[in-house]
Every structure is written in C-alpha cells, then in structure tokens.
C-alpha cells in the first residue's frame, strides 16, 4: 500500500487512528499489537507472500539480538552470532536483490549460460534489512538493550510509517517510545501537518515532475536539448520531493502515534559541496553506513591516505549498490566516491568561502549528473542522455514537447524551486500570524491543497513508486 493512495488515506489511516485512540486507548500492549498487525497488513497489501520474508527477518534478528546481548562479554560466541546475523541479513539481501544481477554479469563476462532465476524484489527490503541488522549490531555494542518481546521487535522493524521508504530508524531512537511513549495533542497535530506536507510534496510536486521526467528519460524518440534539460531538472525535483515527501509522511505519522523519528532530509539542494549534500540527503542511510561500515573500518582516522581512500571506496560502492542492482547505481555511487575523496583530500569545504555560489553550482552540476546515471535504464542510455543534454545528439534545441511540459508545469516548477530552499522556516521567523483568523486560513489552505492532491489520485494521474529498486 502506498501512502499516496486513497485506500491508505480514507481507509487504512483513519481505521488505524480510530482503533488506536478509541478501541485500544487503555492498553499500550493492545496499541502496539494493533500497530504491528496494521503494519503487516500494510506490507502484505501488495504482495502478501513477501510478508513472510519480513516476518522471518524479524524473528531471526530478534533472536540474534537476544544472543548478542547474552554473549556480549564473550567475544568468541558473540562473534559467532554476529557472523550468523551478517550472513542471514546480507544473504537475504543478496538473494532477493543481487543474485540475478550477479548471475547475469557472470554469464556475460565468462560467456556462461547459468540459468538466472526470476526473483521479485520484496518492497522495502533494503530498509527493513538495514534496520533489523542495525538492531543486532547496536545490542552487540551495548548501545541498547535487546527487546525481549518479539512483537515489539517486530513493531520496530515493520512499523508502517517507515517500512517501505525509510527513514532507516535506529532501535535506540524509538526503543523508549515503543513502551513508554506519551501521545499528546501537540505531537498529533504537528504530525498531521507534517503528513500533509509530505503528501502534497509527493502528489502535487513529485508526481507532476515525474510526468516530465518520464517523457524525457523514457522517450523512444530523440529528445531536444531543452527537453533533456527540463527532464533532468524535473527528475532532480521529483526524486527529492518524492523521497523527502515519504520521509515527511513517515515522520508525521510517527508523531501521530507518539513515535519520534529523526530527520532524513535537510534541504540538500542548498549544499555548497558534495560532502554537505550527503549530510543533508537521506541522512539515515548516510549515518547508517558511517556508523556500521565507515567508522568500524577506521573512518578518516587512519594512518595512510590510501586506507582512507579505500574506506571511502567501500562506503560509496555500498551506497550505490544499496539503491539497486544495476551498473547505473554502482557508477552513481562511485562518482560520489571520486567527488568526496577529492573534497576530503583537498579540504574543499574549508576553502573558498567567498566562492559559495560557484561551489553551489559545482555541487548541483554533479548531483544532477548523478541523477542522469541514477534514472537511466542503463549506462548506454545515460550516455545518450548526456549527449542530448550537451546538444550533440543531433536533435533540435527546443521542440513542442519542451514548451508543452514547461508551460503546463511552470507553477509546479517554480514551487519546486522555491520549496527546495528553507523558505518556509525563513518566512515563519519573520511573519508569525498574530490572529486566529490567519491560523484558520492557513489550516483551511492546507486542507484545500490536500483535497486537490486527492483529486489527482482519484483521477488516476501518474503516481510512480520509485523505491522498487531499493
């Protein structure tokens, strides 16, 4: 089930809110069971059989967590259970996500004819696997205590707001919330506003941008240079508003039920270096890889530069692969390896304070180049797209399709550009409404735009789910 769907908005969400706050309000246990069952139902909605994969992952990681806690002081035994957890989690990910890719490449490189099984990717497997795995790792390090109740461990992994598109929540972040959260009107209200913001970002901004991006990237005819640029700008906005919109909805719904997730996006497109961009983009993934891969390898506190470069290489290769089993994602990850290595070795971030506009342009140029590789079907399609962008593809500079999409989406493009900077918090600081009427008007405006967004869903406009690869 998608958040940006009418069955979620008009059935699932009100149903869960009603049961949670009315039927189960007197028992935390019942509330947690309700959230767990709802989460499993939410997950099973599209592909019921994959719910079994997730339940298996929950049960085994819960068990690994118990073992990790029990043998925390016995290094040898602990290592055994950690190896088992690693083999299980990475094995699960490998089988469902990378086996086909690996076999296809083995066949291509060695001229073999190994039968490649068709394996469908369980939705959100990268998110819930990373989340479950970090739970075991945190217990082994003594960061948190193991959860004795498998239902609660299950709730942590499968809680529907963050299940299929993140953020990747650490157990320590919500461990207390699971049993001792205190729901209140303020949190609920803030959560609702946050959910609406995310919903509008996804349905009104990301989906409209997706139409342009699809027309440009999936065109079977050569596209003009202008259309290529418009498609790239649209995709740059689409992926940001889609992903951050989902995170907003997740954080908002978490708040509605008393959970407090950490932020996942912080206006990444205002960054003045690629390193800064990654501190602002998909923060939960960046910190996950930092804490569980980069730091354990020594991070930047290593004796030689070559070791630092190696550590960065591993992290960015994994970042690329996490996003999907395709060479495009690998090259995309490695592009960031090169850029971040360059920035780290040259101290780029500390230099040229007066050249910030240029640094911003440099950052966005590479971020957008990265999105071309990320969005393209394969590397050769990415190459063709770069040619179209450069005007060397032999097609016209501008065409009717460019004008059609540009004119029809001008308002959305402007809104995307405007809201990709922290304009709202800037305005909030300067213009705090003094009168209740203003509050009512703003609230009514929110609901009006929500109704408009719902009208897009009911109409059946393009509503892609871009995390199928993740």
């Amino acid at each position, binding site marked *: 089930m998608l958040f940006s769907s*009418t069955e979620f908005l008009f059935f699932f969400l009100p149903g869960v809110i009603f049961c949670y706050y009315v039927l189960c309000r007197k028992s935390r246990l019942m509330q947690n069971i309700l959230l767990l069952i709802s989460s499993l139902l939410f997950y099973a909605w599209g592909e019921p059989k994959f719910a079994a994969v997730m339940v298996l992952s929950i049960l085994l990681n819960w068990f690994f967590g118990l073992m990790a806690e029990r043998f925390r002081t016995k290094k040898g035994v602990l290592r055994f259970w950690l190896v088992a957890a690693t083999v299980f989690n990475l094995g699960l990910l490998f089988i469902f996500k990378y086996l086909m890719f690996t076999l296809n490449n083995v066949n291509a490189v060695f001229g073999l004819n190994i039968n490649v099984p068709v394996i469908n990717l369980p939705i959100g497997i990268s998110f819930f696997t990373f989340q479950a795995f970090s739970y075991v790792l945190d217990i082994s390090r003594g960061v948190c205590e193991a959860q004795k109740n498998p239902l609660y461990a299950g709730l942590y992994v499968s809680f529907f707001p963050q299940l299929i598109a993140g953020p990747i929540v650490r157990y320590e972040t919500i461990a207390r919330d699971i049993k001792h959260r205190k729901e209140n009107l303020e949190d609920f209200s803030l959560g609702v506003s946050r959910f609406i913001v995310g919903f509008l970002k996804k349905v009104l901004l990301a989906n409209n941008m997706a139409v342009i991006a699809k027309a440009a990237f999936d065109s079977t005819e050569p596209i003009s240079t202008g259309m290529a640029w418009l498609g790239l700008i649209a995709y740059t906005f689409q992926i940001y508003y889609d992903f951050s919109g989902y995170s907003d909805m997740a954080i908002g719904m978490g708040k509605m039920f008393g959970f407090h997730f950490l932020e996942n996006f912080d206006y990444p497109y205002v960054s003045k270096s690629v390193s800064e961009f990654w501190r602002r983009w998909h923060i939960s993934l960046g910190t996950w890889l930092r804490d569980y891969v980069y730091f354990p390898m020594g991070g930047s506190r290593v004796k030689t530069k070559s070791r630092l470069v190696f550590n960065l290489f591993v992290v960015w290769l994994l970042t690329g692969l996490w996003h999907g089993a395709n060479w495009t994602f690998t090259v995309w990850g490695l592009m960031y390896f090169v850029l971040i290595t360059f920035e780290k070795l040259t101290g780029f971030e500390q230099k040229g304070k007066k050249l910030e506009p240029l640094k911003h342009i440099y950052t966005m140029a590479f971020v957008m180049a990265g999105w071309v590789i990320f969005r393209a079907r394969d590397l050769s399609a990415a190459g063709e797209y770069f040619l179209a962008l450069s005007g060397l593809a032999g097609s016209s500079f501008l065409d009717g399709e460019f004008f059609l999409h540009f004119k029809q989406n001008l308002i959305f493009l402007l809104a995307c550009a405007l809201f990709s900077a922290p304009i709202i918090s800037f305005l909030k600081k300067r213009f705090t409404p003094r009168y209740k009427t203003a509050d009512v008007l703003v609230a009514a405006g929110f609901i009006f735009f929500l109704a408009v967004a719902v009208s897009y869903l009911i*109409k*059946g*406009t393009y509503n892609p789910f871009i995390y199928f690869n993740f």
Partner: protein
Amino acid sequence: MKVKINRQIITAVLFSAFIFTGLFATCCKALNDSERFADLYSAYLGEGKTFPSKAKAAVLTAYESLHNINDIIAFKENYINLFGLVQRVNGVRCVFEEDPELKVVKLDNGALTYVTQKENDLPEKAANVAEFKNSLAEKGIPLMYVQCPFKVQKNNPGLPCGVSDYSNENADNFIAELKKRGVDSLDLRDLFPGEQAGKNPAFFKTDHHWLPQTALLAAGELGKKLNTAYGFNMDLNLLEAEKFKTETHEDIFLGSIGRRVGRYYAGTDDFPLILPEYDTHFSCEFIKKDTPAIKRTGSFEEVWIFREHLKKDYFNVNSYAVYAGGGGSLIHCRSHKIPGKKILMLRDSFGDTLGLFLSLAAGGEITMIDLRYHTGSVKEYIEEFKPDLVLIAYCPTAFKQQYFFTFR
C-alpha cells in the same frame, strides 16, 4: 489542562474530519451499492459452500473492492471537477494520465479529445479485411470499408504545441493498404470542414463521438455511394436535414472525455435529439452481452431512441446512448415501410448512429455487430443472415484494437 488552539491543531481537526468523512461517506455509498459487492462475492465464491471458501470469498471481495476504491469513493465527481478546475486555472491543455492512451487534450476550439499513437500493424489488419472480403466475394457479397472521422482533423488538427496525433495518418495508411488489396472504401473525414473554426461543430465538445447531425450527413453520403456503386435504390431525400426535427436538450451531457476531467475543465454539451418528421415503422432487436435481448416495434423514435439516457446526471449517464441504447453486441432491424436490401455493418460506437440513420433510407434489414462484444461467429451469422452487402465502419481509434479486425 487548557489547550492552546493553534494552526496545527486546527489543521489536525480539519484533517481528521476530512479523512473520517471520506471513510464514512464511502462506506455509506458502498452499502447503497451492495449489489456490486454481492456480485463480486458470488464470483469469488463460485460453487463453494464451506465456511473457508465463504471466508476466502469475503476477504477477496473486500481486497478487490479496496484496491478499486477509486471507483466507489465518496465525492468522486466533486474531486474530478476540482481536478479539472485546477487544470483549467493552470492553463493545462494536455492532461496526462497513468495510462498514456487516455491523456486528454484540449483542442484550439476548446473541445476535448484523446490522441492516438502510430499503429505499425496496419498492413496485417488490412490483409485481414482483404481476406474477409475475398471469402465474402465467393458468396457474391461485396464489402466496403467506411472510414468515420476523428475529432482531430487532418488539415487543421488544432492540437496544442508538442502533442501529436496519428489518427489521420493511420487512417490514410489503412485506406491505402486496403486499396492495394482491392478493398473499396469510403472516407467520410473530408465531409466536415470548419470544425476547428468553431463553425458547424461535427463532434460533441466533451465526448469523442460525432453529433447526430454529423452521423445523419455521413449516412447521406454513404447512401449516395451505395446507390451509385452497389446497386441500391435509396431515396436520399429521406436523409435531408429538413426532413428532421431537432429537440435540443441543453447542458445535459458530459461526454466520456469530459468525465475524465470534470465539467469545470471543458464545460458540458447540449444534446440535439434528431428525429424524422415522416412516418416510419421498424422492428428491432438489441442484443447486449449478459442482459436479455430488447425487442421493439414502432416508429423510429419508439424503436431507436432510449430516452432514459436524456437525463442530467453528468457522471452516470451517457446521453450518446439515447440512440440505439448505446449499441451492444448485435442490433438487428427491419423496416416495415421501405423494402430494401440486407446490410451487415461491423461497427464501433460511431456506427450506431450511422446505421440507424442509414436504415431510414436503406429500408430492408440491417444488422450491426460490434466485434468488441460479439461472442458468436461473424462468418456463421453471414451464412444465416445472407446480407447483400457487408460494411465495416470504424473511427480511427479502432486501429489500436485487434478484435475489430478479426473476422471469425
């Protein structure tokens, strides 16, 4: 504890009202439409009588209903109207949909249309028609293809910049392919000049179909061709416009394209009901899939007109179905006033109105078959009906469907 009312709290209250109203109203609507669920449940249950099979059927019914919740959601029409209004304010002329085939385009004259893609298998489809024609020729039955027009005109498409439509190119190519194979055709597309200039509109503004008066004009043109090339002896005066009276039902119709974008995007259509002013007497049988056949005898109006579709219910009533009840898989009609030949017309929905106006002058018997819905064999029907002529009358959107060109 005193609660300080702020913007977030007001938003939360309104949001809760919004989603719970949606839930409640949709449930009420679903209860009123319980037949739909009963049908679905019965289909899933099949022959099963045990508790597990009933439970399974109930779960699957609930699952499918929720999956298709957009079909039953409360206030659906209001949402679609709101959507259309937003598109209008935003100056959108091409409304993209999940299914690219269904994108709605506003022409320069304000009318709505779908656009069609280039079809690459037209030679194969033309070959099917030619093969069919040859099999009929063995029985001495001639065949002619009638090309009905499309809203996007050949010489003055009126499309917004950046939108392409291949309906006319497809039609040109198909007619050329038929010609190569010796199949006669009548191209009705050039009959309607001035459409884009806004004069003498030939089509409904919010629907893809032609207006009844356009179909009448087309029937006259077809009659001319049948008289000259196929030995018919029709009195074409019977198809002259002055022999008809027009009842205009104002602001009553939101066509199939209009229903996709709401009435605030393109407005609504008047429905001109055109009826002959001379005496007529027909017997007709209308066969629709999964419903009992309808038999009618009487005047043109009593037989061909289904007035229940002349109702101002934009999203639930298709006024085009006033003529011939919206078609169906097979319509057979006999004229008791005018003796004539037997015509079999394989047609899409454009053919409904074309065929019924043609029947006024052609007399005799006419059978109209829609291959989308017809489950029987056309060839066997021909053996039984023994027509004097077979017509195939399609608008250019038919080219994307193989079943229109499969003559079993």
